């Protein structure tokens, strides 16, 4: 007989904090009035934490070309890719298609997969069994230089 338990446990390991976020200040350095901010200290904003939700599954890629310009993805932009996110309709994905990496919007409909560019100059691509095709990861953020 088996006892019912929650299906799986997930173990979380402690996050390692790098030392460049916060400075340690000893309140007894000076004889003057201790800083009133000491009790309210918080860690600095970290773009790593904002942009990377899953460190182990996150990779970066550089964009070449303008097929996704309508989605705000331009030539030379940096993509943040999270492989742990399930690919679903409407997500922007990095795919490996017939020997090349490509970034397109996923269209999943009735068991058919289409790769939709966001630029009228590029055609929509239907994925068939003849294609060598893998969805490599889901794009979560675009970083651009201005």
């Amino acid at each position: 007989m088996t006892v019912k338990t929650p299906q799986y446990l997930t173990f979380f390991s402690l996050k390692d904090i790098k030392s460049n976020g916060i400075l340690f200040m000893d309140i007894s350095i000076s004889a003057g009035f201790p800083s009133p901010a000491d009790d309210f200290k918080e860690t600095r904003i970290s773009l790593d934490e904002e942009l990377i939700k899953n460190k182990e599954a996150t990779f970066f890629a550089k964009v070449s070309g303008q097929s996704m310009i309508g989605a705000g993805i331009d030539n030379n932009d940096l993509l943040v890719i999270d492989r742990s996110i399930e690919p679903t309709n409407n997500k922007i994905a990095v795919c490996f298609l017939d020997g090349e990496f490509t970034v397109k919007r996923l269209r999943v409909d009735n068991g058919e997969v289409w790769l939709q560019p966001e630029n009228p100059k590029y055609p929509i691509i239907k994925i068939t069994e003849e294609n060598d095709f893998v969805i490599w990861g889901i794009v979560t953020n675009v970083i651009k230089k201005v």
Partner: protein
Amino acid sequence: MYALVDCNNFYVSCERVFNPNLQNKPVAILSNNDGCVISLSDEAKKTGLPFGVPAFKYEAFFKVNNITILSSNYPLYGDMSTRVMKILHQFTPDIEVYSIDEAFLEFKGFQNYNLEDYGLKIRKRILQWTGIPTSVGIASTKALSKVANKIARKYPKKTNGVYVIDSDEKHIKALRWISLKNVWGIGNRLEKRLLLKGCKNALDFIQLSDRWILKNFSVSEWKLKKELQGVPKFLLEEISSKKNIATTRSFESTFSDIDNIKERVATFATSCAEKLRKQQSNCQIIIVFLRSNHYKKDTKQHKASISIVLPYPTNSSLTISKVAVQAVTQLFKKGIAYKRAGVLVSGLVPTNNYQLNLFVQENPKHKPLMRVVDKINTKFKANKIKLASQDLQQTWKMRQERLSPKYTTNINDIITVK
């Protein structure tokens, strides 16, 4: 219960994540300096290419069999390994990272879990998140989990990459299946002696009497027998720091003059000292070796090593390289073309806990100096501060003619998408 999670053809798999064109093709990875074949894809194994052979002897073979050859890209493999191990930590707090591509997990209090499902979940998550395929073997002891892992790896379609030994029937079947030389801890010599005794597989081995094993071998073989019977004797080892550290390389060409070899050995010694400081250890023993090119049988051969016990434990680059260079003067013989050298440090003790020597001690200035050197070298990435015994003009490079980009550790090397 224990699990062994092993990454399939790890180096090749890392390359394939970022270059999926290599999928289903024969691929071989070469060691440092493009010396030997150290990792093969399943397709490359089928061509009959053996492990460990020197690459230059097989150039023609690579061409005929269409094998893609790559230099080893350790920054990439190291990062991918860290990702895999971090993911494994999400499945159990008890884990032993056994090597760059395998880890033992222990499941305490998982009685109500279906461990096969759990194994499949581990495999699926690693594959999806990192792109690395793994095999998972689960059993009541570490040695048996190794056997289960071999079964999962051998029959990926039947097992989906996960095999659990959880019944007497499976236990006996597995032991009968595995040949002695594939059992963890049974080397060639042991296998020969056991074959003489009439043992062909692990099942024969566990039927030998405890007394006979202890009399003819040692306690570790007896422990292995118990492990294979399903009685845990090997516990998880949480490896906090390494017991030996080494830097050894083949030279791009050969050296017959002592100055070049001194420079190389000083550099290897410095690298060992850096590794020691990184893990906060001191060493008590330094071993230096030199070797001529043993593939060129027609030239004069020389192979020698020396080990030096230090008067006090140290991790100072200055001390370690000084001792190593002195060792070179003792080892070096004129008229030999040397091809390979190495420095190994051993007898490691933590920096904050060691026996002081009453009469000789490390110069107290070394410690803060090394701290500054490490800081500067980390900040500017390349080794900007070197010892004077290292070559300042020339930057030595490993031969890496077929190196893939550092996809995950250098922003200029990331993949390009269209």
